[in-house]
């Protein structure tokens, strides 16, 4: 089984976000960038499946600028085999456009499993996996917390849903989006980071794909969220209860 893992380069989750003063977006200059944490989980899962002999080849796909090569290398260092970078000039790429590009790549690569994070921690859209599943007409198993291969080649996927855990059975090829509990991604070892430098990354220009990936949304402005002011420290439990009862009136 061949796995295609889609990864996005985002502002590192530890960075404090700063909105630009001209309200056009958030500061990205000199800001630490990393692989979207949910995509790291997707890479890890593919690598584990390969270690267990269920996956034969892992291809990492990222859509972005040249800088996304670095993100792909991270995946290669974790154990993936090769990479594909689809280069776009338009940084305002939206999930639908990304989905169309991924579908194009699928047509060429024919993966049996497409796996990616359930959401990117920058735009928090939670859409791309579902879009790819719809465009390819493959079943979708979103928010996965466990994957099991069945004898007949189908996959049982346990999904984290609001009311508990749901398990569905999907035929392959399929699209899986990862949730936090699926696994804990490994750190790449130094030898593997060195080895990853030799692995191949193919570059495709998005304009050569002839797709309509123009944005459908116009960002009018980006603002700071309303601030929440720190309140007071209370000296003891009785004081806390008194305040909640008589000041906040919430209990």
């Amino acid at each position, binding site marked *: 089984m061949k796995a295609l893992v889609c990864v996005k380069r985002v502002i590192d989750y530890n960075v404090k976000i700063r909105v630009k003063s001209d309200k056009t977006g958030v500061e990205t200059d000199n800001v630490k960038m990393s692989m979207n944490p949910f995509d790291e989980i997707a890479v890890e899962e593919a690598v584990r499946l390969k270690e267990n002999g269920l996956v034969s080849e892992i291809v990492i796909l990222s859509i972005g600028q040249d800088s996304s090569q670095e993100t792909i290398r991270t995946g290669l260092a974790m154990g993936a085999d090769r990479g594909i970078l689809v280069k776009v000039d338009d940084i305002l790429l939206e999930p*639908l456009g990304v989905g169309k590009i991924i579908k194009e790549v699928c047509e060429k690569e024919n993966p049996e499993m497409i796996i990616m994070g359930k959401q990117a921690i920058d735009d*928090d859209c*939670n859409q791309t996996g*579902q879009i790819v599943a719809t465009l390819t007409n493959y079943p979708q198993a979103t928010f996965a917390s466990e994957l099991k291969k069945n004898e007949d080649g189908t996959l049982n996927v346990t999904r984290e849903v609001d009311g508990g855990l749901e398990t569905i*059975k999907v*035929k392959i090829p399929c699209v899986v989006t990862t*949730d936090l509990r699926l696994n804990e991604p490994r750190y790449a070892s130094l030898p593997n980071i060195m080895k990853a430098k030799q692995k191949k990354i193919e570059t495709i220009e998005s304009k050569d794909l002839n797709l309509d990936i123009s944005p459908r949304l116009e960002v009018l402005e980006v603002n*700071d969220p309303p601030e929440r002011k720190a309140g007071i420290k209370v000296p003891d439990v009785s004081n806390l209860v008194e305040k909640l009862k008589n000041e906040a009136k919430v209990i």
Partner: protein
Amino acid sequence: MKSLVIIEHDGKNIKQTSLSTITAAEQISKDVEVLVLGSNISGVLENLKKTDIISKVNYCDEDFLKHQIAENLSEVIISFLKDKEFTHILLPSSTFGKNLGPKIATILDVQQISDIIEIFDHETFARPIYAGNAISKVKSKDSLKVITVRPTCFEPCAQNSNVSDEKFEVSSNQSKSVEFVTYDQSESDRPELTSAKIVISGGRGMQNGENFKLLEGIADKLGAAMGASRAAVDAGFVPNDWQVGQTGKIVAPDLYIAVGISGAIQHIAGIKDSKFIACINKDEEAPIFNFSDYGLVGDLFEILPKLENELN
């Protein structure tokens, strides 16, 4: 303009998230219909028909819709939409809506607008990005708009009406590539996390699952729902669906009590619309204090029993 709200339910009852989504739909256009899909949903229908604002309940009651598989639901929704003139399709941004919305949008070749928190006009919306550390105001150029709505930002609409319903017939076109296996539902007598008036959550500071009993007593007294930080869920103290935060559940109760939780941005993202936040933490420098109306510095193992007592 005319909106269609896709109803989330549990087979017996509609979810509060649906009522909030209807409120949001009304802010776009006064003309709102709903569509509910399921199997043996007479209970759901009965409840739904009481809902204010909406002019009509459309429903599809078929065996193959029982398990809310996105492939099956989206097929039916698309055939329902044929020859109809809806301009907006709205779903709650729960796991139900997040799973289904992008499928509908993609089939219609439109870009879904995810998790809106404010409506300016029929094409302009605010939505949080970067875990709510920035708010993006976007204008959609698509002629038909598919939107998911953050339920905590819109009051659930009232249910004092009597609305007519209409059945929508489909020929079963069940997906052959996906099948329901099991649903392991979290059992709880407590209110639902996302709609409770009071939520009490524990973090890594609780040390183990057993210690969550210390929170239970308090939750019982307050009629509160229980939640947790990611660290507590990852460590296996409590079930996955208790996770509050950017990538878990968004809550906005009247009172949120954070116990042994440091206040990472991803956690804050899920609680900052709460009316009041109280916290208990032994580290007075913990970021959670910067977001709390009432902070109590101290060891939770000493404080919680006292708090339970004090509530008597």
